[in-house]
């Protein structure tokens, strides 16, 4: 069945509109919720991570600061509670050194240095008694500040170390108590902090030189690949690009990292999250850093999952919307086609009803004058019979004329009877009818006529068809019309065939009868009017154009349907569908009529 042209464009529009509405109403809120959740979760995660890193950096800073403050306090205590004379005695100094290290091996060595910059007494593993420290930066610093914690330096011992020095001035005696801190111990305070696979904690000085060995990419006293200027304030949290020397630079060239950074010869490895905090003393920066991807690895997985789920949901919504829209459009189209079909039938039925009512009035009005004509013709015939002197030729001509009048009156009467059948409701009582018997009866009636027209009739009737509860005479009238038309369709052809079939259609619980002929067919432009009253393709005088209208009306009253397929020049096929359940009967009129083909059906329910 074709899609109504009128609706073709509106279906596309409706489809698009439906998609737009359903997508807008479902996707937009979902997107909104999804993105808000994503952003909120990201923000929340970021702040949680940031807080965690800051806690880490503060924790480690406090540990280092505590350690350094305690060691400084230790040295100060020794310096201020012991006299120069006491501490310059080697055995006393040794004793003090052991006491200092009693709780832990914090100090590598201990010594008293005079204002000349040379050791006066020294306890430790190195031979430093003859070394001059007067020009070293730490010496100058302690002489200026009184207490000084140095950065890591190599010094005379050629190994990274840092010292705590306290200047003591008592009376005229000025001396410095200098202690070297056990470097490994300092490192151990923070190097044990493990943050995943990529996290590390280390200390650098203001110049970016490692004061402890980092976990990755460097060792103590190396320059860290950090832009020290960016670490402003007391503490902070940054996301930085972790860089390494450009691959084109051979590592053995030994170009300082600072220069590489300065001249843009570093390349980005990955993003890292960095928390930092400046120690109060010394001027060291505690750095806690970890690869961004590792920190947010799980979070990113969750975010990715959320995004994937979000997009999958959107896609699912789109797909479901499209499929649902398509299905709905299909249903709407089907309903429209059905509605159009019903509308056509309604129009046809209304047409028939109107014409039928008109026809009934016209028929009645015409029958009376016809009765007058017929009886008047009879009067003239009687008069002519009385006249014996009439010329033979005149009498013959008169007889012929009167016969012609009678014939035309009968023809008119036949037309009016058909008109009245159009208007008339079919019989009051339905009966159980064997369709095959009815068809065979009609075929029997028309066999001779078909044969004389060179048309061969064949039947293919399914056995044991359910019986129809219908009106037998009207049923035969329908097939009489159809088969009669089929025979007439072969006019002008030397031979042809009509094939009649009958079968049960389980899907619709009805009987389907087809009458297919090899006649002249019906032009396409006439097909829509074939059931209209007075529409005929036969020559004038050969048909009234009422047969198919009457058949249509009868079949519809039986609760059935009639349709046609035809190809001009090739033939036509009429299909009649009748319900096995029988037609609805509401207030049927009339007599029982003569006995039908089968026994009576039970009395129909009247509404």
């Amino acid at each position, binding site marked *: 069945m074709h899609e109504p042209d009128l609706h073709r464009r509106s279906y596309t529009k409706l489809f698009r509109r439906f998609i737009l509405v359903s997508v807008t109403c479902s996707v937009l809120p979902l997107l909104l919720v999804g993105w808000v959740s994503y952003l909120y979760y990201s923000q929340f995660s970021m702040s949680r991570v940031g807080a965690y890193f800051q806690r880490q950096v503060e924790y480690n800073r406090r540990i280092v600061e505590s350690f350094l403050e305690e060691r400084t306090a230790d040295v100060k205590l020794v310096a201020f509670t012991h006299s120069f004379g006491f501490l310059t005695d080697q055995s006393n100094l040794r004793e003090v050194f052991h006491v200092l290290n009693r709780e832990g091996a914090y100090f590598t060595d201990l010594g008293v240095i005079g204002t000349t910059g040379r050791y006066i007494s020294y306890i430790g593993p190195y031979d430093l008694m003859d070394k001059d420290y007067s020009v070293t930066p730490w010496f100058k610093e302690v002489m200026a500040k009184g207490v000084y914690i140095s950065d890591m330096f190599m010094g005379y011992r050629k190994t990274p170390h840092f010292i705590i020095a306290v200047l003591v001035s008592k009376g005229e005696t000025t001396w410095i108590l200098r202690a070297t801190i056990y470097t490994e111990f300092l490192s151990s305070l923070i190097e044990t902090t493990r943050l995943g696979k990529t996290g590390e904690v280390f200390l650098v000085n203001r110049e970016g030189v490692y004061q402890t060995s980092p976990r990755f990419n460097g060792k103590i006293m190396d320059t860290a690949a950090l832009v020290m200027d960016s670490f402003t304030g007391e503490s902070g949290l940054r996301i930085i690009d972790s860089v390494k020397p450009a691959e084109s630079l051979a590592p053995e060239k030994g170009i300082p990292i600072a220069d590489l950074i300065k001249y843009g010869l570093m390349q980005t490895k990955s993003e890292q999250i960095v928390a930092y905090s400046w120690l109060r003393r010394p001027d060291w920066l505690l750095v806690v850093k970890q690869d961004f991807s590792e920190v947010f690895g799980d979070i990113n997985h969750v975010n990715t999952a959320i995004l994937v789920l979000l997009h999958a949901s959107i896609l699912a919504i789109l797909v479901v919307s499209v499929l649902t829209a398509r299905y709905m459009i299909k249903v709407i189209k089907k309903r429209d086609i059905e509605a159009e079909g019903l509308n056509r039938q309604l129009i046809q039925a209304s047409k028939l009803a109107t014409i039928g009512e008109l026809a*009934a009035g016209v*028929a*009645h*009005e015409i*029958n*009376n004058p*016809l*009765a*007058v*004509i*017929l*009886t*008047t013709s*009879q*009067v003239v015939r*009687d008069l002519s019979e009385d006249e014996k002197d009439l010329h033979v030729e005149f009498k013959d001509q008169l007889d012929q004329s009167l016969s012609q009048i009678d014939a035309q*009156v*009968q023809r008119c*009467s036949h037309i*009016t*009877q058909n008109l*009245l059948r159009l208007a*008339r409701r079919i019989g009051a009582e339905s009966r159980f009818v064997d369709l095959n018997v009815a068809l065979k009866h009609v075929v029997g009636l028309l066999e001779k006529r078909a044969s004389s027209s060179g048309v061969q009739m064949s039947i293919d009737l399914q056995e044991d068809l359910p019986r129809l509860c219908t009106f037998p005479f009207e049923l035969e009238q329908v097939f009489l019309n159809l088969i009669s038309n089929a025979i007439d369709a072969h006019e002008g052809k030397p031979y042809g065939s009509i094939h009649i079939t009958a079968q049960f259609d389980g899907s619709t619980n009805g009987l389907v009868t087809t009458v297919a002929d090899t006649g002249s067919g019906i032009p396409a432009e006439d097909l829509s009017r074939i059931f209209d009253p007075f529409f005929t393709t036969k020559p004038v005088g050969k048909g009234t154009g009422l047969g198919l209208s009457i058949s249509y009306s009868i079949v519809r009253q039986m609760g059935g349907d009639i349709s046609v397929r035809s190809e001009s020049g090739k033939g036509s096929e009429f299909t009649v569908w009748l319900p096995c359940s029988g037609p609805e009967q509401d207030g049927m*009129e*009339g*007599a029982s*009529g003569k006995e039908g083909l089968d026994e009576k059906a039970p009395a129909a329910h009247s509404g």
Partner: protein
Amino acid sequence: MRKPRLLIVDDEIPFARNLVWLLSRRDYEVEAVYDGASALRSIEEQEFDVVILDLKMPGMDGIATLKELKKKRPDTEVIILTGYASVDSALDGLKLGAYDYATKPLQLSDLEEKITQAYERKRLLE
């Protein structure tokens, strides 16, 4: 056997007159009236064997006329004529006691046959 006495009741005057002329020539005693009231007056004044009664008439229609006629002359047989060709209304008439019905236009021979049958029934019932 004498031919039956006939009363034609039809508002179509030319048709009624033609029937009178044709049936008279065939030795029927026949009269014509053109409405139901006149028909009732006629049957009160004289007895008819068979009444040929048109269904559709102005004023008192065929069914109403039939009902009154059957009250006054239950033995009189009635043949209903109708141009409407409606089995329903004709059969209403049969239920009210009409003997048969015929549809217009009709052949005279067919009408004569029905008149004969109606008259024979009347004679049998007398």
